[in-house]
């Protein structure tokens, strides 16, 4: 079934990544009907869970050859699905998954692409798109001369889609495994078990910077506060570079973009590359011993002092609150 927009949906085998559903909100703003696209292996349940968002079709590419998200195969299947659906816009949510596969699909389709769109507007009778550039220090308004296009959107800027009772048709795509590119092989993925919420979906995020010194201190202070508040843990590049936290905890221009209700920054100076990832937090708390740290210019509540003293006190106070 043809559709005006095709949306790439992301999952981790167990469940749909909620932020990837926000692309539906963007598609509704673009106008016209939309289809969803899911790739992987063993997707029946996940596909069923996508019914109820008003998509005309849920395209499912379910094949052992797609068990791992290898960019060369995925981009080909996505490009084929885009042609088949005759859509004009291919939309995904900004994540390392879509940033890996969608530009490649765009090239296969011979269409331009915009990354990290935060707003869709009308300008002189045609569409324009707003996106942050230079670590979010500027916002660019961009137009495309091509009707066919690929977009990734920032989940926080579009919000979760309301449900829609319209019937969605689930359509299995035929995958000819032999015709797929074969130059990439999946070897392994770090499996880290955590009870904490996903950084990009968490209501509360605790971020730690360089002065957390060692992993033990980082886990005790940042982790301690996160556990108490049911929050996720984030870190600056400096903290990740020095091994205090794993790479996927990095928040900022080149890490994750978060938009929680509450972000607590512990020993973080507030470089623009870090601020690029936290601007959409509703409440920002900063604890820093330097009263002139730039983070205070953005913090809703700032507390000047030594985090090694203040954070244990804060943990105590929150526990008793």
């Amino acid at each position, binding site marked *: 079934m043809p559709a005006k927009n095709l949306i790439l949906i992301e999952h981790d085998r167990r469940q749909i990544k909620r932020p990837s559903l926000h692309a539906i909100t963007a598609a509704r703003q673009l106008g016209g009907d939309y289809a969803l696209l899911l790739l992987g292996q063993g997707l029946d349940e996940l596909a069923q869970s996508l019914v109820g968002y008003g998509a005309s079709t849920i395209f499912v590419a379910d094949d052992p050859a797609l068990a791992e998200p290898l*960019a*060369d195969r995925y*981009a080909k299947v996505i490009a084929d699905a885009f042609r088949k659906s005759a859509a004009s816009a291919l939309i995904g949510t900004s*994540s*390392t*998954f879509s*940033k890996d*596969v*969608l*530009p*490649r699909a*765009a*090239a296969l389709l011979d*269409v*331009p*692409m915009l*990354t990290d769109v935060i707003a869709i507007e009308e*300008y002189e009778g045609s569409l324009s798109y707003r996106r*942050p550039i*230079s670590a*979010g*220090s*500027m*916002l660019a*308004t*961009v*137009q495309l001369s*091509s009707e066919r296009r690929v977009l990734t959107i920032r989940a926080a800027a579009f919000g979760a889609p309301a449900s829609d009772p319209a019937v969605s048709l689930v359509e299995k795509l035929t995958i000819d495994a032999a015709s797929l*590119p074969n*130059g*990439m*092989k*999946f*070897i392994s*993925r*770090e499996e*880290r078990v955590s009870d904490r919420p996903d950084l990009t979906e968490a209501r509360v995020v605790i971020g730690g910077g360089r002065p957390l010194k060692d992993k033990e201190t980082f886990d005790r202070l940042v982790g301690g506060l996160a556990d108490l*508040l049911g929050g996720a843990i984030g870190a600056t*590049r400096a903290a990740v*570079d020095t091994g205090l936290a*794993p*790479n*996927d905890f990095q928040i900022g221009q*080149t890490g*994750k973009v978060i938009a929680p*209700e*509450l972000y607590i920054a512990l020993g973080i100076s*507030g470089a*623009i*590359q870090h601020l690029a990832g936290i601007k959409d937090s509703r409440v920002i*708390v900063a604890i820093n011993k330097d009263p002139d740290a730039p983070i205070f210019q953005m*913090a*809703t*509540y*700032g*507390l*000047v002092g030594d985090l090694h003293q203040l954070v244990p*006190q804060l943990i105590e*106070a929150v526990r008793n*609150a």
Partner: protein
Amino acid sequence: MTQPIAKILVPFKSVPDPYEAAAPGGTGATAKSVINPFDEIAIEEALRIRERGEASEIVGLTIGAPAVDEQVRAALAMGVDRAIRIDDARALDPYAVARILRTVVEKEAPQMVLMGKQAVDDDSNQVGQMLAGLLGWPQATFVSRIEFLEDRICARCTRETDAGLEVVDITLPAVITTDLRLNEPRYVSLPGLMKARKKPIEVLTCAQLGVQVEPQTTTISTARPPKRSAGTRVESVEELVAKLKEEAKVL
């Protein structure tokens, strides 16, 4: 021992200095240009591969106006063997850049293209993946470790993803894009800079390459984002907790 990789091509972009912008109070706008930090990491990695005896020649490549020759010299000073500048002063978009790069790759026939994951001015994170798609080559993006296997038929790459580290093997020729933690680039030495002055820069045009591309994206305006105003200073942990509970209602 089999042969080293004959040629690695490293595309790099000249961008406003992000380290100046990163300084406390920095606004993001600076006059000084540098090699895009991710591309500097790509150059460094290519040099290390060559220094280990696993590659023979490193070719640097940039698309830009004559003013970017300063960054081309910096790449040569780091140790790139030779450099090409495609003379094009237009505001190109990633897909236009990828199509121009593709023609150079076809001309130079490297076994590997090593480049940044993202230009820190436009923050697109597209060109490498597009180039790989146009060439039909395997890709490994956001890479923090590269190791060669099977007599360098294949590269084992560790990728930084939203879910943590992932390892993939890719068959060469391939495109690899770098993440921050792949290495720490060397400083350019003064003798290196002096020597670089004598190395030639090959200047080509799109017409000479036989490629005609028009950017399909137009920036109609740029503006500063709404500023988040500084809030309240609190004097104690008790005051903070009270504010979070009663005023912000987040606890």
